């Protein structure tokens, strides 16, 4: 599933949650990915929380109108009411990041009201010098001291239906996913874990699915900046023996 990141007025893609490059308009991306029959789309408004902005419901409404595939929306979500409005304008799932650490109880409230299936907890983690991992919030700018495995277990118990796990170090590098991080988290929980950050070639996706035990893979740079496409990725994965929709 492609990830598109929104910042200021358009889509961006960075490296390690920094050095953002503009990559076009959101609506155009949705239309293209729609046509290419990608499996799901993740749309993250990456500065909403830091800017203390609520989600931009109107823009999501417009995007969702053209998005005939599952759409996950994240960025700036703080309350059950934010979630209600996002689902109402056509989001299928919401991605909770900062609030999962600051006020995890909200995950329980959302799951109770709308079902676990629409609650994605997006965990951004960075590797420390000693090899352990730490969770960051506010689009990777605030260190929390939390361990991604314990956070994943906690949000699962609260009712999260899925985890979008991003390696900040690998993000945008196209050097491959953080397989160890993915394996640790996906072995600790029984909800699906979507690996994100680092895809540079189709082989990277196969590796994180096989060795990292991820349920699905998300990617951005590989689709923005290379000739590689979601459809080719899926063909490759099917040849590798994974159950993939073509």
């Amino acid at each position, binding site marked *: 599933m492609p990830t598109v990141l929104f910042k200021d007025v358009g889509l961006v893609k960075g490296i390690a949650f920094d050095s953002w490059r503009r990559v076009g308009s959101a609506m155009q991306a949705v239309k293209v990915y729609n046509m290419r*029959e990608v499996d799901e789309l993740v749309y993250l408004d990456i500065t909403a929380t830091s800017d203390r902005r609520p989600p931009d419901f109107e823009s999501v409404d417009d995007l969702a109108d053209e998005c*005939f595939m599952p759409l996950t929306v994240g960025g700036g979500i703080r309350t059950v009411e934010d979630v209600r409005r996002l689902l109402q304008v056509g989001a299928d799932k919401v991605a909770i990041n900062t609030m999962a650490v600051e006020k995890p109880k909200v995950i329980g409230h959302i799951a109770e009201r709308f079902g676990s299936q*629409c609650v994605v907890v997006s965990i951004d983690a960075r590797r420390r010098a000693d090899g352990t991992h730490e969770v960051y919030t506010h689009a990777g700018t605030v260190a929390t001291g939390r361990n991604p495995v314990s956070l994943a277990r906690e949000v699962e118990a609260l009712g999260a239906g899925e985890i979008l796990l991003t390696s900040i170090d690998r993000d945008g590098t196209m050097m491959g996913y953080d397989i160890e991080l993915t394996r640790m988290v996906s072995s600790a929980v029984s909800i699906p874990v979507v690996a994100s950050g680092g895809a540079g070639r189709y082989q990277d996706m196969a590796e994180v699915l096989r060795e990292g035990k991820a349920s699905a893979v998300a990617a951005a740079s590989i689709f923005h900046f290379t000739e590689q496409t979601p459809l080719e990725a899926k063909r490759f994965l099917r040849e590798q023996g994974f159950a993939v929709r073509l």
Partner: protein
Amino acid sequence: MKTVAIVDYGMCNLDSVRRAVEECGGNPVVTDLTEEIEAATHIILPGVGSFRDGMWNLKQRSLDSVLREQVVGRQIPFLGICLGMQMLATKGWEGGETDGLGWIDGEVRKLEPRGEDRRIPHIGWNEVAITKDSPLFGGMNNGTDFYFVHSYHFQCQREQDVLARSSYCGGFVSAIGRGYVFGVQFHPEKSQRAGFQVLRNFLSL
């Protein structure tokens, strides 16, 4: 043009269904008004959320009796999507034992983890194996992928009501039908081309 009442009972996810119906050439009306439901040529009951809340919301707005009159009484073609399909059952267990609409005999129970299929909710694309000829799947390849998001599944009492099955947690019923009443566990509005085909088939009834 086919006027499709998309029943609004406060359980979200209406906009994507509305847009998909529009893309498929229908005239969607998102409504909880009796007159508008009565004027429709087709009725879609979407839904995300728990069985108990869904039924409670339907009853709160007296939509259960309005729907019964139109669908069971006047035989207006009906499509339940996800929770909208599940509520066709006699009974559901999500949120506690709750009576459903009862138009198709069966119960809605939680998926049980089995072997490799331990992750619940069942989220993602999965193949739909058609088990019975039905206009709903006209022109479609058997084994087409559709998008699913659910933790509960419909256990039919009568095999003749089952239109399709999918394999997860030991297999579950992914589409049901009896006369003009249809239900699909997957989300046609999120299943791109394949979903549009199902919606177009429904609209042509």
